[in-house]
């Protein structure tokens, strides 16, 4: 379970960043996230939807303890992200579209490395690795260096390293953003399997087709603020525009933020 309560994240700007914001910008900081509150339940898929720069990555990084909230609290499986960051990370599998792999390691070495960092015992590791490598059909390239693998193969390695410690919570940040349809399918399958296994799944995307395909619950954010939070069913029943895209734009414009 992920519980986000009234979370803010403010970034102080450097001189260069202020210059880049343009002459119209006033102040020394920006609120990347402003008062977000939502809950992701086990056995359900929660979609965090928003345009680029909406605050999705910042929110997910705070959940994964990489960033500290400026205000508010976040708990993962009842562990506070600020007070118990290591416990949070132990129960979390984090996968992003931008995270790359160590090209000079083999797929097996990388997965072993992540397992060691998570303190997975050797016998459990061997069993989990065989299970995951078998399910993802990775046997043919497990001992090849990652730099020599195709994008699809790399994505499978990414999934394997995310799952090797059997996390109860999966956080996926734009995980399909740079992938083609075939490679994206592996991620979609991962999300479905995780939900079926009772895990909490939170994924961010700006591809609304995936929201339609996977979501049980949904939060729509824009400029760090929540525009909608509820079940996908509630969202679709309240739709005033013909498509998801149109409804998304309508809500953003109506909010006027």
């Amino acid at each position: 379970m992920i519980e986000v309560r009234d979370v803010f994240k403010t970034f102080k700007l450097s001189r260069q960043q202020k210059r880049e914001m343009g002459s119209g910008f006033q102040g020394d900081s920006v609120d990347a996230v402003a008062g977000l509150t939502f809950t992701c339940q086990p056995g359900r898929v929660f979609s965090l939807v928003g345009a680029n720069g909406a605050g999705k990555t910042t929110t997910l990084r705070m959940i994964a303890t990489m960033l500290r909230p400026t205000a508010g609290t976040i708990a993962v499986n009842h562990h506070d992200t600020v007070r118990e960051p290591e416990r949070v990370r132990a129960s979390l599998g984090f996968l992003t579209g931008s995270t790359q792999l160590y090209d000079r390691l083999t797929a097996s070495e990388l997965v072993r490395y992540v397992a060691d960092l998570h303190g997975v015992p050797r016998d459990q590791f061997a069993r989990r690795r065989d299970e995951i490598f078998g399910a993802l059909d990775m046997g043919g390239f497990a001992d090849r260096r990652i730099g020599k693998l195709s994008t699809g193969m790399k994505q499978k390695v990414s999934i394997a390293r995310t799952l090797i410690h059997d996390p109860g919570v999966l956080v996926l940040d734009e995980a399909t953003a740079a992938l083609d349809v075939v490679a994206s399918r592996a991620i979609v399958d991962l999300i479905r399997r995780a939900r079926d296994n009772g895990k909490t799944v939170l994924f961010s995307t700006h591809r609304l087709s995936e929201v339609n395909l996977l979501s049980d619950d949904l939060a729509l954010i824009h400029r760090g603020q929540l525009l909608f939070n509820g079940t996908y069913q509630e969202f679709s029943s309240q739709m005033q525009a013909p498509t998801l895209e149109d409804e998304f734009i309508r809500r953003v414009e109506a909010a006027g933020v």
Partner: protein
Amino acid sequence: MRTIVTVFRKELIDILRDRRTIMFMIVLPLLLFPLLFRVMFSVERSQADKARSKKLRVACLSDGNAARFVAMLGDRGDVEIVTGLSRDQATALVRADSLDGLFVVAPDFDDAVAEMKPGRIDFYFKSTDDRTIVQDRLRETIDSFEREILDERFVRLEMDPSIVDAVALEDHNVASMEERVGKSVGGMLPYMFIIFCFVGAMYPAIDLGAGEKERGTMETLLTAPVNRFHILLGKFGVVVLSGLVSATVSIIGLYIAIRASSEIPPEFMNIIVKILGWKTILLVLSLLLPLTVFLAGILLSISFTARSFREAQSLITPLNIAIIVPAAIGLIPGVEMSYATALVPVLNVSLATREIIAGTMRPDYLAVVYLSLITLAFVSLFVSAQWFRRESTIFRS
């Protein structure tokens, strides 16, 4: 401890598979000295052979004076006397390297010699290192000529030639050969070790910080349930090890270069081999260890701050000067180990290594050097740990 070992092992495998790191950490320091020695000695030998065997072209403007000297020059089979030149022309030819030497005998030379006064001969030459042999060859004739005149004077005056030696001075330098070699060669060695230590640590530091950020692999580490300080220590270990390996390999390279060189006289070779003993090397490495930790802290802090490998390189390049300058100051004659210099990082290692090699290191100075380096190492580690924890550093983009 488990995390530190895990990160250390992974980072070590990673950098050992990087050709650029291997090049700077092992190949360059191993081959530099043997190649340098080979090139240096072969160039020097070929220049010396050329200077020894070439036929010397010399002009001698004497106006009939010092006829015996002119004849002695002419009798030498390896000298060609060029005639028909004015003083200005001959000087210009010496300057242009067309003549190896010009002798101008004073008009009153013969009269002066007859009166048992010094006769003046001006010797013009253009001096560069390899021409010293040429000058020596020409001076031989002048020396022979002078000896002949002196012998004649002693006979004429019925004097014993030894009368001109009023004091029979015998030098007895109590400094051992190790001390003398240590003070001279020992100044250069730490300079090389420190540079290699820095260069060897530099690429892994850039790769493990900015490189990891640029490649987008940092999140894998940051989302693991481990203490960030332990991650840092694992990375630190690899950077320090790389610096030390690089410095050690440079010592091995130097040892190979010396052993393989046929140009070094055996007695000098024995002293160098004695100097490069295990005890000395271990003592020097024990100084390099805290220095490398200190450097690793600075390098990693810069590397974590940089957005890309290239930016880290450009930020670290000026640091080269900050390393080279104090290391080079240690080479300046007169700069000696003291309580003040023992506190200055890099310079203290440079001076201490010189003293260790010469066998003249004072324990109190050595203690101050260790104290200074270990303190700085801890400060550097602390600063880089703080830096690694900062969100604005790790997610700077």
